[in-house]
């Protein structure tokens, strides 16, 4: 675990340096465009967190593994923090580029809805009463339906309105076709670093969940004595 955290910290600093000193200043948007290198990786990590929430929820229902539940509840918490950061960086970027803190563009809106869903899940975990195993199962059901809803929400919001710049990275078919090389390199470095950082956060949170569960188990043990 310690090596992972150290690696993540180093990669993060490296990515920041790359963004600050290596990435070129974009002609139209200026320095503000560099938020892109933080915003996009954060959004990517949020989706990874949702995937981890789904995996943990399915594992809980299918195999009754306590570890799967720890993954699910950790992923939801890490995911809601990441989604908050996506919204904040998006808002900053929007202010700099579009001149407004918020606009009801398709992808911003679906990210906002995702934030509500993740926060709702975390609230559910903290408010649910009843035996922990039962809560783990009902929360897993919630996790699965939430994850299944994300693509439907995204589709509906996209149909509802699309103002967002078309995905630049993927546009010309081959990956990175639309970005100059140095920008793409910076983005990739940053993606890697943020993925590592999110993984480290998740691992730390899972460890914490293990401690929580051990305390709970010890309390149960005491009660049975």
């Amino acid at each position, binding site marked *: 675990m310690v090596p992972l955290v150290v690696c993540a910290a180093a990669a993060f600093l490296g990515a920041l340096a790359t963004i600050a000193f290596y990435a070129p200043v974009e002609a139209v948007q200026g320095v503000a465009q560099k938020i892109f290198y933080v915003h996009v990786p954060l959004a990517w990590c949020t989706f990874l967190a949702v995937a981890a929430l789904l995996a943990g929820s399915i594992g809980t229902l299918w195999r009754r593994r306590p570890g799967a539940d720890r993954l699910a509840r950790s992923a939801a918490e890490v995911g809601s923090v990441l989604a908050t950061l996506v919204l904040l960086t998006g808002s900053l970027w929007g202010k700099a580029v579009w001149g407004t803190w918020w606009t009801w563009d398709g992808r911003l809106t679906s990210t906002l809805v995702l934030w509500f869903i993740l926060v709702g899940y975390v609230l559910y975990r903290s408010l649910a009463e009843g035996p922990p195993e*039962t809560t783990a199962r*009902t929360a897993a059901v919630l996790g699965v339906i939430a994850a299944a*809803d994300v693509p*439907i*929400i995204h589709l509906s919001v996209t149909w509802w309105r699309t103002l967002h710049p078309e995905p630049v990275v993927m546009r010309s078919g081959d990956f990175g076709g639309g970005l100059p090389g140095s920008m793409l390199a910076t983005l990739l470095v940053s993606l890697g670093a943020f993925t590592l950082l999110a993984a480290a956060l998740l691992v730390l949170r899972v460890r914490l969940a293990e401690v929580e569960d051990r305390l709970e188990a010890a309390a149960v043990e005491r009660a049975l004595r």
Partner: protein
Amino acid sequence: MRRWGAIVLNDLRLEWRRPGRVAAIAVFALLAGVVFVLASDPEPEPLARLGPGAFWVAILFAGTLGLGKTFAEEERDDAMTALLLSPVDRSALFLAKAASTALFLLAVEVVMAPVFFAMFGLPLLRVLPGLAALAALATAGLALLGTLLAFLTARAAGRELLLPVLLLPLVLPLLVAAARGTRVLLASPVPALADLSAWLTLMAAFDVVFAVLGCWGFERAVEE
């Protein structure tokens, strides 16, 4: 199937014994409409723009209030335990509760729609067939997801608050589709059928996904 029907009929009978619930929810939905009008401009043009969205928002909010009571009768004297001890498929139980919830919501919609459309100066009769299709799909989806979430939140502290907080973001696709679909219907004498069918398809997909996931999830959530 017979058991499924028995549970639905039983729910309808319970509702029939207390007709006040449908009325109260419908009154709440109409009040929401009045609030929308008063918060906006009472001119025909802005009202017509606001109307379709306001109609579905009112149903969503009112429906959420009703959904919190989905399992109220089962909880009061623990009839749920008797249901769970009967040899009834969990899926049948879930679909029965969702069906009776959907019928309840449809009753609310039938009662409030004429007044609501009149308040916003919208022609109800002209769009009725299309609106009925939208309402059927939207109501089914809201009932399916709402029933599952009502069950999941039944044992949480502050459930009255938690249910809407969980439900509203998850049913947004239905709200968007129903509101946009209604606007398409109202926009022209001959509605753009391609646009309308896109929204209908989205809602149908939503309904299928949550019918399947609802049965699957309910079965796993009831076992302790």
